[in-house]
Structure formats: structure tokens, C-alpha cells
């Protein structure tokens, strides 16, 4: 069944023939719309076929997922609209500075593997809050952990709903608000039907769709514009150098984009040079973003939760390797879109393009078949969907499992627990949709805030909880308070700025405690506080230490 569905998911778009307009914005595009519709139907069918039968299935896929399958799910779960659309957008907008996000979002997996993956699986808990509450023997911390996990999931989800809205708007030619609601309803429906088991199967199919849709246009564009097309991930070096040195006009006779603009360009070293003045970004910000995204990656609840679904501890470790490799395929490729997009939109007559849509625009400007552009856009939707489904499950798990069952109603039946998980999913989707409709910030901004929040709060608790038995309840509590306070201050300044409210030391705080990189100081402070308070308070109970020794580190 799985193989049949996989074949359908790959081959079906090839059988759809329809006309599509070649405009960067606006009208309804039939071909891309049909591709998108067929992919969405496939997701729902897969979700139904592999639906959850009980809480064990819903939360942790019955622990039946192989390491390669789990790696694909990790990659699919990870590669959101921010990766698919946002990576190229960041480099298109600020050149080399965008690479801070590339290495931040991949380098964090090294931390995750070396410091956590195997131990998390050994600890044997379903959710991040479950681990926190159990390891630090505190209901308060369990509740706090669950709330933080929900907040992270919501912040992350809002960004994804924004991406879904952007792509639905582009494909269907409908209003952004309607696009967000339609996309949100679809992703909610199959998450509800399937639970994590169906979602995991979906994620494997989604990964294939994401990668195929992302790579095909790259090969075509590289071939078309005479770059090394056999491996565009290496071949784009010549494109970067062309941008740096410039392309003189005589070389570009009859070389035009799909709208007839020629793309001879003046020398633009700022595209590739580090922390260039023209980007408005500094060396400190590059380093702070890199570090914050790394610790955030190792603290994201929906990423950590993937390790519960593999059968063995060894599989948890190897699933990170596979997951990172699958992720890197996209991350090696995203800068190619940025470089090609820079050349194809170099003519001032093109005008300012929406950065978040530069991946799709590059394919359009390169005059690629509209159906392939449609497949690319559908791949973007898949990327957003796969992440949203994982986030909804993580958020629903935090509410139903960590708050409702463990705190509010410990004696509830499994049926009741599953119902609460589903209600929580619906509630989260409604909240996320409402926030996404407000357009409070860019996709990338909201996602980066979620990372820093995770880096300041959950990462220190997991790191010390696993590796130091001396870390106790009071240490964890004060560490969480400090991390939470840093997050609160940074987010307050960020939100105030959005509403044009000038707080004291506004510029200073926005620079040193930026909303997308405040974990550079928040995470170390939270860890330090945890250690100091733990040292001067009562020892961790022997049962916890015994469990760590015998079950986690044995």
C-alpha cells in the first residue's frame, strides 16, 4: 500500500495537463492548482489509511518507524516554509548573512545527536513536558514545560500558516485570509484523522515531494543558463562568482528572463562578502543567529518528540544522521535559488520582489514550464504542511498528555485522552489561524522567535537534566525563570517595536537582544543559573539519580 501511494504521489502530477498563466502574482493557475489538489488529497488518503487507533499510536506512532523512515520524517517535519521559501529569501535579501541560518539550522543537529537523541529515547517519555516534569519531579515544571511547548508550537505554526497562505494565494489567486483558512482546515483535518502514525507516513511521502519539487527546477535552470547542471549544489559557485564580478552586457545578448528583461549585472561583491555594510548586518549578529538557531534546534519540542517514535535507542541516533543528510540536500540547494534569483531579477525594471516567494519567482523568471513551477509551489505547501502537522501533534500532546492527564484528570480513560488531544489540536489550529490572519510579522521572524524561545527554556532543561544528576527542581525552576525572563524582555521589545512603542534603551535592546537571536545570552544564563542554584540547594532525589544511572546512561 505504501509503495503504491508513494508511486502515485510522484507520478500523478505528470499526468495533469493544464494551462497556467506566467504572472508573478495574481490570477488563478489551473495546472498548479490541480497538482496541489492531488497532493492534498493524497495526504488525506494516506492519513486515513495510517490513522491512529489509540493514544500510543497518536503520540508516538506505536514505535514502529525505521531509522531511515524516521530520518525522512525528521527532515520533512523540519523542512518548513521557512526552509523551503525562507532560506533562499534570506540569502536573496542579505547575501552571506543568510548562511548563518543555513549553518544554524543544520549545525544544531550535531548538538542534538551528541548530547540528547539517544538519551531522550532511553528516558522513554512521550513529550518534552513529560520529561521535564518527571526528571525534575515537579508538577509546576511540567505545566510550565507544557505551556512553553505550546507557545513554541504556536509561534512556529503561525509562520507556517503564513507560508501556506502565501502559496495558496499564489496558486489559487484567492485572498490571503481565505487561503490561510482553507490551508489550515486541510492540514487540521488530516492531522485529526491520522494522529502521528498517519502523519509520519505522510511525512515520508511529503519529503519525497518536497525534494523532487525543489530539485527539478534547479537542474533545468542550471542547464538552461549554462552552469554545471549535473550537480547544481556545486555548480552554483560560478553563479556566485558571476554576481561578485558582474556580467557585462555584451555577453548577455538575447539572454532575457521570462518577461524580456536582460540580466547583465554590475559587480556585486556584497552578495558574497561576510557581514557586508550594505546588508545592515554585523559580525555579532551573524554569530548570535548561528548560535541561537543551533541551541533552538536542540530544544524544539516537535523535533525532540521524533526520537520517541523509533523502536531502539540506536535507531534514534541513526535517524538523526539520516534526517540531517535529507535536510542538507535541501539546504545545499536553497542558495542556488537565491543566486539564480539575484541574476534573473537584476534588471531594475523587474522591480522589488517579495523575498519570501523568490524560490517560485526564480522558476518563473527562468521561464520554466508552468506545471513544474506549480509542482515547486505545491512542494512548498507540502513543506509547510509536514511541519504544521508535527507541531499540532506536539502542541496537542503537551496539552492533553502533560496538562490534562497528568495534572487535571489523571484517572481519565484512553478514549477521553484521545478526544482531548483532538480538541486541543482544533483549538491550536484556530488560535494559529487567528494570529496568522493578523500578519504580525514575517514568516522567518516568527520562526526565529520560536527557536530562541526553545533555546532559552527547553534546551537548558534537557541538557542538564540528561547530563548532570545534580540539576534539581529548584535549579531547573530558576533556570527556566531566567530563560523565560530573557525571552519575555526580548519579545516585549520586539512586539513594542511592531506597534511603534519606544521603550527605554530601545535600540540597544533590539540590537543586543534581537528577537531572532536572544538565545545567545538567554541559553547560557539559564544553564548557569540552573547550575548555581542546584549547587546551593538540596540534592536531587536518589530515585531520579538512580533512574538516570540505570536507565538513561547504563
Amino acid at each position, binding site marked *: 500500500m505504501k509503495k503504491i501511494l508513494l508511486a502515485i504521489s510522484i507520478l500523478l502530477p505528470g499526468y495533469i495537463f493544464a494551462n497556467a498563466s506566467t504572472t508573478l502574482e495574481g490570477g488563478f493557475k489551473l495546472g498548479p492548482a490541480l497538482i496541489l489538489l492531488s497532493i492534498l488529497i493524497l495526504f488525506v488518503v494516506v492519513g486515513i489509511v495510517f490513522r491512529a487507533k489509540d493514544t500510543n499510536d497518536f503520540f508516538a506512532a506505536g514505535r514502529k518507524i525505521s531509522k531511515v523512515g524516521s530520518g525522512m520524517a525528521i527532515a520533512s517535519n523540519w523542512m518548513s516554509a521557512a526552509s523551503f521559501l525562507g532560506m533562499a529569501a534570506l540569502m536573496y535579501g542579505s547575501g552571506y548573512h543568510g548562511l548563518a541560518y543555513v549553518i544554524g539550522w543544520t549545525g544544531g543537529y*550535531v548538538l542534538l545527536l551528541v548530547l540528547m537523541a*539517544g538519551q531522550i529515547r*532511553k528516558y522513554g517519555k512521550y513529550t518534552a513536558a513529560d520529561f521535564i516534569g*518527571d526528571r525534575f519531579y515537579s508538577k509546576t515544571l511540567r505545566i510550565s514545560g507544557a505551556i512553553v511547548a505550546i507557545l513554541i508550537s504556536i509561534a512556529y505554526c503561525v509562520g507556517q500558516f503564513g507560508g501556506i497562505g502565501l502559496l495558496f494565494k499564489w496558486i489559487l489567486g484567492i485572498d490571503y485570509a481565505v487561503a490561510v483558512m482553507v490551508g489550515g482546515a486541510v492540514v487540521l483535518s488530516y492531522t485529526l484523522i491520522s494522529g502521528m502514525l498517519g502523519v509520519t507516513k505522510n511525512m515520508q511521502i511529503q519529503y519525497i515531494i518536497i525534494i523532487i519539487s525543489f530539485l527539478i527546477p534547479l537542474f533545468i535552470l542550471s542547464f538552461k543558463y549554462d552552469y554545471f547542471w549535473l550537480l547544481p*549544489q556545486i555548480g552554483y559557485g560560478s553563479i556566485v562568482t558571476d554576481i561578485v564580478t558582474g556580467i557585462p552586457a555584451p555577453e548577455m545578448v538575447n539572454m532575457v528572463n521570462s518577461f524580456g528583461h536582460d540580466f547583465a549585472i554590475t*559587480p556585486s561583491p556584497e552578495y558574497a562578502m561576510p557581514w557586508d555594510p550594505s546588508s545592515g548586518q554585523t*559580525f555579532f549578529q551573524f554569530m548570535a543567529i548561528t548560535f541561537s538557531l543551533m541551541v533552538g534546534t536542540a530544544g524544539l519540542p516537535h523535533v525532540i518528540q521524533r526520537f520517541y517514535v523509533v523502536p531502539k*535507542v540506536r535507531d534514534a541516533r541513526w535517524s538523526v544522521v539520516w534526517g540531517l543528510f535529507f535536510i*542538507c540536500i535541501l539546504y545545499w540547494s536553497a542558495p542556488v535559488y537565491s543566486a539564480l534569483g539575484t541574476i534573473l531579477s537584476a534588471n531594475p525594471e523587474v522591480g522589488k520582489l517579495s523575498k519570501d516567494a523568490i524560490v517560485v519567482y526564480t522558476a518563473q523568471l527562468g521561464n520554466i514550464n508552468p506545471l513544474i513551477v506549480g509542482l515547486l509551489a505545491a512542494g512548498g505547501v507540502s513543506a509547510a504542511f509536514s511541519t504544521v502537522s508535527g507541531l499540532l501533534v506536539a502542541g496537542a500532546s503537551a496539552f492533553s498528555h502533560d496538562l490534562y492527564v497528568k495534572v487535571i484528570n489523571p484517572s481519565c480513560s484512553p478514549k477521553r485522552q484521545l478526544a482531548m488531544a483532538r480538541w486541543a489540536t482544533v483549538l491550536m489550529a484556530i488560535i494559529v489561524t487567528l494570529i496568522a490572519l493578523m500578519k504580525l510579522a514575517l514568516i522567518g521572524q516568527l520562526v526565529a522567535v520560536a527557536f530562541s524561545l526553545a533555546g532559552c527554556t527547553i534546551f537548558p532543561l534537557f541538557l542538564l537534566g540528561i547530563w548532570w544528576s545534580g540539576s534539581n527542581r529548584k535549579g531547573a525552576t530558576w533556570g527556566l525563570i531566567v530563560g523565560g525572563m530573557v525571552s519575555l524582555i526580548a519579545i516585549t521589545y520586539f512586539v513594542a517595536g511592531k506597534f511603534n512603542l519606544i521603550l527605554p534603551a530601545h535600540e540597544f535592546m533590539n540590537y543586543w537582544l534581537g528577537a531572532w537571536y536572544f538565545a545567545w545570552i538567554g541559553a547560557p544564563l539559564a544553564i548557569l543559573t540552573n547550575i548555581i542554584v542546584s549547587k546551593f540547594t538540596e540534592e536531587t532525589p536518589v530515585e531520579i*539519580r538512580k533512574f538516570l544511572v540505570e536507565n538513561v546512561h547504563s
Partner: protein
Amino acid sequence: MKKLTNIGASDVLFNFNIYSMDEMKNLNEKDYHISFFQPTTKLAKFNRNLSITLLTVWAVCIFGFQIFLKVIEEPTPEMAYVEYQGVWNQLKSGQASDLEKQVFIKSALSVLGKVTLKPEDRVYLNAAVSHFTFELAGESQKALLGNKIEILRSAEFGKSDYPNQKADLGSLSAKLINVEPYSLEAKLLPIELAAASSSTLNTEMVEMVMAKYLIHNQSFLTDYVFLGFPFHYFYTGVFLLILFVGICLYYCIATDKAMFRLGITEE
């Protein structure tokens, strides 16, 4: 409902109620401690050494390289900036020759042709280019130049007469700044003249914008080309990702081997 088999310590011992310290002490038959830096088993020692080694490599390769890049960098101007600086004082004093004005316009166009140029910065250079292009035009040509700019402004890209109107202004302006009609400057100038909202020269802002876009942080690492890339770009954008996968792969293989050697099996 499948029975959940993975139960944490407090599930068994506390049932989510916190025991008193006295009760804890009664259970304390053996001293259990875990510390990353003070391992007590062979596997833990191996894991600590492996983790420290790999994370050191990881940190040095990521942050060490960027710090090194920062230390050795030098603010390096583009040729266009050097040329602009050579004529700018004369232009500011109002005593520049036509040749010096042409040099400035070409330098400004090299910034105006950049994709990264922000709209708020473009305004000042547009105005400056427009200002000096009109100065280059003789009295008899000013009206003609203004007329052609207005025609192009009212034209619409994609319409049949647009290329001709653009070429018409392009040929006139190319002569003024002494460039070949097929050159990039000749293609850019009509667009910029049509986009200019004024011809008022703001010297301070022009100086700021030119420095902002024409001076870059460069070193031998940025200048050396490797596989078509500037080396530092390849290192950060391609090599580091390969390194991350390699580190993870090595960690898993080394851990599996160590467990096999020590006769440890995991569930």
C-alpha cells in the same frame, strides 16, 4: 489501548507527589551520580571523550573560521569607488570637468545596478545621476533629454513601443556619458533617469550610499576561488554541511563500535 511500558522514575516512586527529604534518604542505599565531565563507566568515559572531541571540531570549524575571517578582513573598495573618490571633491566644489562627471555617473550606475540596493538609498543616487547628466547635456539638449525622459516615464514595460522609447533615450544618454550603446551603463541610465524623482544633489547622502555599497570586507579567503565559489562562501555554505553530516556519521559508527567492544546492548 496498548499498555505503556516506558515509565519514568517518578511515575513509580512519587505518583507525582513530592516526597520529603527524609523519605528520600531512607531510600538512599547507594550513591548515584551522573556528570558529563566525571564519568564512572568505560562507556561514559568513551562518550565524554568522543563528544568533547567532536564538539570541539564542530565549534572551531563553525565559529573559529568566522572569527578568523573577521580578524583578517580588510575594508576593500571596488574600482568604481576608487574612481568616484578621484573625482568627488571636484564635483562637490562645482568645478568638475565633463570627463569627471562621466566618471561619477558610471560609478553611481555601478551601484544603481546592484540588486541589494535599497529603495531609500536609490533615491539619492538617482537624483545625483540625473543632476550630472543634465549638466553634461548642453542647453540645446536639455529640453530634448527632459522630453525623452518624460516619454519613457509614461511608457509601460511590455508594450510594443517601450523598447524603442528606451533605446531612444539610451542612445542620447550613452553619448552624454561616453559609453558604448550596448554597455550595461547605457542600458541602466535611461531606467534610472526615468525613475529619478528629482535632480537635487545631496552630497552627504551620496557619500554615505557610495561607501555603503562599494566597500566590502575582503581577505585572501574571500578572494580565492574554489570550485567556482569564493572560498569562504563554499566553506560556510557547502563544506560545513558536509562536516555536520560527517560528524554525526562518525559519532554513530564510533558509538556502535564502542558498545560492541564493551558488550553493551541497548533496547
